């Protein structure tokens, strides 16, 4: 067939670049390069790094946070944020601890953990979508509120005495070095990948993040979608609370303190636009692994925690600034 090129018969092609062409230019490729660099550095710097059991232990640095980060990524893409996630963990863990004191079994504990997470998410979502309050303010408020309740209940005590079978979530192994948490992490990654990239719900999330008014005018029930995202974030915080409580075997009100910022860092490092509208789940997965490996590698080198947070901060700024620097340099040379 010859191309007649008359305007009426002109067909607009589907894609500008091939799948491969787009993949090579993506943020994820940059993250993979960073991951390889961190891995290589760690392997050269410490003889203990390349050990299956050590690497398996290292995954605990990110699996629980990443579970929340997946839901947070969707929330941030939609133009909202939830800073109360770590406090939801504290409250959910406290509720589970209290239930364990009166003899609740493992299934009940899991249901309580997830249920408290859902309730907290619903509370945030109702304030944001029902009353139209800005999510950053609402969740700074509930950040104090949820953890405050934990402090009120526990004071300087702690809950322990969880049933033996409850330890499976945070301490169990599925096969060899593969932990239960790794499997949960992988399943969550897959689920959220499908949700964001393959369902109509995911499309609506992107549309809302890019233009909430336009999304409303396109027939999207914007408030319902946002409420669902707060519920999901609460639920994933509840799941993280189950895993973390199971791993630690006890609950203090300071549990997971400061995690909200690490989760947001993970999401942003993963290439999600903090202003909403763009980002991918593979990016967040890579960011989670990178952050876990950096923390672990520095731990092997006996770097104290404060210095570690400096490294994580520098890494975030460096990775975010890199593409911008590249464009600036290119513009200068051109």
């Amino acid at each position, binding site marked *: 067939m010859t191309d007649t090129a008359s305007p009426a018969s002109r067909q*607009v092609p589907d894609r500008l670049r091939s799948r491969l062409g787009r993949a090579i230019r993506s943020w994820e490729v940059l993250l993979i390069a960073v991951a390889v660099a961190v891995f290589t550095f760690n392997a050269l710097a410490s003889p203990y790094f390349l050990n299956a059991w050590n690497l398996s232990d290292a995954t605990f640095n990110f699996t629980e946070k990443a579970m929340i980060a997946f839901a947070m990524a969707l929330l941030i893409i939609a133009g909202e944020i939830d800073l109360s996630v770590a406090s939801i963990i504290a409250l959910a863990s406290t509720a589970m601890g209290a239930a364990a004191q009166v003899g609740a079994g493992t299934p009940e504990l899991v249901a309580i953990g997830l249920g408290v997470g859902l309730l907290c998410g619903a509370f945030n979502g109702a304030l944001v979508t029902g009353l139209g309050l800005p999510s950053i303010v609402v969740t700074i408020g509930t950040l104090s509120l949820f953890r405050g309740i934990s402090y009120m209940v526990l004071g300087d005590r702690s809950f322990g005495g969880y049933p033996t079978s409850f330890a499976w979530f945070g301490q169990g192994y599925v096969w060899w070095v593969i932990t239960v948490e790794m499997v949960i992490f992988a399943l969550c990654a897959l689920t959220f990948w499908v949700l964001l990239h393959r369902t109509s719900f995911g499309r609506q999330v992107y*549309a809302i993040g890019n233009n909430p008014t336009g*999304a409303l005018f396109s027939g999207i029930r914007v408030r319902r979608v946002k409420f669902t995202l707060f519920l999901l974030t609460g639920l994933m915080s509840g799941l993280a609370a189950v895993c973390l409580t199971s791993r630690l075997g006890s609950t203090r009100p300071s549990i997971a303190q400061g995690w909200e910022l690490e989760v947001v860092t993970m999401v942003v490092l993963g290439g999600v636009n903090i202003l909403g509208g763009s980002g991918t789940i593979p990016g967040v997965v890579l960011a989670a692994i990178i952050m876990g490996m950096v923390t672990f590698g520095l731990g092997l080198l006996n770097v104290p925690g404060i210095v570690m947070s400096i490294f994580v901060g520098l890494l975030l700024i460096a990775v975010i600034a890199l593409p911008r620097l590249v464009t600036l340099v290119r513009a200068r040379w051109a």
Partner: protein
Amino acid sequence: MMHDTVTTPPVLSLRGIEKRFPGVIALSGVDLDLHPGEVTALVGENGAGKSTLVKVLTGIYRPEAGQIEMEGHKKAFASAHDAEAVGIAAIHQETVLFEELTVAENIFIGHAPRTRWGLIDHRAMRARAADVLARIGAKIDPAARVGDLGIASRHLVAIARALSTEARVVVLDEPTAALSAHEIEEVYALVERLKAQGKAILFISHKFDEVFRIADRWTVFRDGALVGAGRIADVTEDDLVRLMVGREVGQIFPDRVSNPGDVVVEVEGYSHPTEFADISFDLRAGEILGVYGLVGAGRSEVMQALFGVTAPSAGTLRIGGSAVDIRSPADAIAAGLVYVPEDRGRQGAILGLPIVDNVALPSLGALSRKGFVRMAEEFALARDYTHRLELRAAALDQDIGQLSGGNQQKVVIAKWLATKPRVIILDEPTKGIDIGSKAAVHDFMAELAAEGLAVIMVSSEIPEVLGMSDRVLVMRGGRIASALTRAETTPERLVRDAAGYAP
């Protein structure tokens, strides 16, 4: 046609002003004189070049040819600041103020009086603000926060800001468009006061009653050119209408034979607490209903209420004979009624998303199985509808923000047609798009009507209303001023009914 006998020399003169945009001549050979202590009314249809002229006068646009003279001295404005410096102040249609700042701070933003230490002299600023406000007869506390003021008071603040620079020429661009009757009186009183102070005033308006009430001179623009000017005392409303409308040139509309089917839409007594009242009409399949009116007549507000964006306080809507309760755009889409908004960038398109996602967005339900999007069908849908609208783009996965306005509009129309609606409302469908895309949109509207869609077209362009509509509703002040058949629709009739002038 008129001549001036006794008059003071003009303070501002324009000679042969020409302004071109790619593909359009916005102003050609415009002459204009403004005299101290006189109000010159500038009238013309939308797109006649009035706003372009204001922007040339205020230094926002630089003309390609022509001269601007202030009291006999040639001036060239490189920026808005230059125009302000020689004493030209403009109050634009939409006043932009800083809501969190006080009235005095707004008035003196950018040129606040300073103390010896370089800090803002608040006491002097408040005193001078009170002085300026008193001069325009506005009873507003200089220390009040602008966000707490009503629309009319904000207007007065904007005027005070313009006057704080000791302007000698004041341009008012449709200052009464958004005001209530009482507030309009305040603006008239202010214009009288400015006149008495010897300012030269250019007053842009669509409303004949106010032109005849406050202006001393008139000027009519059409298609970027001045088509007449003179003294108000020597002219009638009929003369102005005739000059504004002129003969229609250049645009060709699709030939179509209207073949109306059953009644699809019945609107009964739609009302809103503030925007519109008692709107009733019906519409048949295959019909194009034009809705004409001035800016602020409530046309878009009615359409957005029908689409479920805002809630009406009263009224019923029936589609295909059965009453529907529309509380959100999602409900409207489900009922088969869709709306292509005027504000393409904010409401119509999702800039930042690819063309294919934009087209598929309202059809996601039909394109997915158990919530999973079938991407091949998504592309097929986008390909189909954008091809029908002759979209020009590099690829369907291109960001819609990279397209021209006309092509963005095609994508927005495509996304609604893909939902297979029964009723489509197009709000200013060809505003701000190039001639070629305009023709494509017009042809397509005719095609849709021929296929049996009920089409409502809100438009401020008289040729478009005349060229496309089977029937026309004219709105004025939130109400239907008249319902015209095709035979009754003449340019003069539209202008009169919209402006509320009965011959």
